């Protein structure tokens, strides 16, 4: 499993505040703790207005790079901000994201091709997120037609089949798993990723839903996730599922993680007076 650490995201209120106030320590701590928890990329999303986004994204990149060598996943729909940021990253970044929407195809995909970056690819087009598995696969086929035309290798792409909330459609989980299986069958080279928390939006006791969703998705063929790598439930579930799916040779990842204390439940943070 490849983990894209999701925490440096300006659409979260606390991160937004850190960006606006230029609270470098807050961002650096988030970067370092996620990197130490095993993130393969650190997502960086400024989430600010277009006119200041490029500056904010560069500030994020500089602070992340000040504390870790973990590559960065530049998260923006704004081609100008992306291109400015690509020039300051030290390691090849991932780009989050392309889709079959014209503004992303025309604005973001050329950057992916030019800088040969891995990219998250959303299974949606200008009409939105298709309802059925077949319609999503059609969008993915179309998108792959475009990426291949520009010479982007299939294994550089991390398709996000887009998990919709169970609360508003009880078949959304099944559609998601079926879509993963269909992608795996038709396009064995591509990676499949997704966020782990949208599925449980609107429900109580969400952590349980998210955890089992991760397991079922991995069983279907998910090989990456956009998540909080420090989350105890997610980490332990990921380790156990990899083990059970024969993705952990000699069970070494699991046993090493055990010795490193990954399975001892984190103590609740001591209350500060």
């Amino acid at each position: 499993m490849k983990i894209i650490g999701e925490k440096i995201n300006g659409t979260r209120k606390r991160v937004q505040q850190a960006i606006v106030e230029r609270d470098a320590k807050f961002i650096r701590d988030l970067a370092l703790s996620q990197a130490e928890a095993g993130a393969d990329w650190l997502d960086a999303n400024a989430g600010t207005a277009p006119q200041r986004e490029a500056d904010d994204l560069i500030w994020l990149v500089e602070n992340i790079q000040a504390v870790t060598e973990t590559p960065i996943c530049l998260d923006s729909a704004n081609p100008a901000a992306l291109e400015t940021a690509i020039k300051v990253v030290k390691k090849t970044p991932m780009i989050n994201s392309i889709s079959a929407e014209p503004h992303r195809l025309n604005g973001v995909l050329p950057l992916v091709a030019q800088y040969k970056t891995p990219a998250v690819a959303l299974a949606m087009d200008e009409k939105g997120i298709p309802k059925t598995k077949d319609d999503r696969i059609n969008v993915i086929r179309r998108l792959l037609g475009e990426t291949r035309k520009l010479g982007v290798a299939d294994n550089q792409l991390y398709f996000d089949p887009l998990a919709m909330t169970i609360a508003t459609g009880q078949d959304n989980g099944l559609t998601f798993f079926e879509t993963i299986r269909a992608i795996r069958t038709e396009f064995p080279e591509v990676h499949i990723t997704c966020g782990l928390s949208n599925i449980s939006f609107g429900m109580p006791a969400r952590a349980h839903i998210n955890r089992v969703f991760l397991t079922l998705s991995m069983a279907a063929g998910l090989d990456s996730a956009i998540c909080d790598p420090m989350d105890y439930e997610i980490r332990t579930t990921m380790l156990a599922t990899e083990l059970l799916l024969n993705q952990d040779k000699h069970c070494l990842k699991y046993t090493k993680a055990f010795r490193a204390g990954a399975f001892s439940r984190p103590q609740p943070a001591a209350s500060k007076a």
Partner: protein
Amino acid sequence: MSKELIDAVVDMREEDAVKIAENLLNSGADPLSLLDDCREALGIIGSRFAAGECFVPELILAGEMLRQVGALVKPKLEGKSGDTQQKKLGKIVFGTVEGDIHDIAKDIVEFMLEVNGFEVIDLGVDVLAAKFVEAVKAHKPQVVGLSGFLTLAYDPMKNTVQALKDAGLRDSVKIMIGGGQMDDQVAAYAKADAYGKDAMAAVTLSKGWVGAK
């Protein structure tokens, strides 16, 4: 008033609720009182939702039960004289702005507005400014609600308010915004009248604007 019907809806017993409604109608109950019962039940469900005791799938089921009872009642109302429609507090045109496809929060707010007596015209998601203008012309609402989850929605919100102004409609409506990344500053940026932090805030704002308690 049928406590039995109210309880069935509140307890999420869909089949019971429909059966009870049928029995009530067959035994000559006033069809309008059934709708009042449903409204009362949805009000209870709405406050439980606001208190975190009831959840999105239950809101959806409650809406579905209301629809089913409504379908049973409707034929009985036809031919009845007088005003069969409950008097609405006001009209609200609502939608998620261009470029944003989030619908859950929008649907919850619309549900709460309807339960609280407003007529809501839902324009859906990824709604162009021009479509808001068209809907305001056609429906003459007192309030327009702009929903958006992403920071990408800031500018479309601003453009929508501007489009209403350009069409000479800005002074005829109050505009509220809401959603994940919205706050008072975004409302000021978009030149909307107010930001509502949740569904109940939207109800309070709208009631204030139409002069209802």
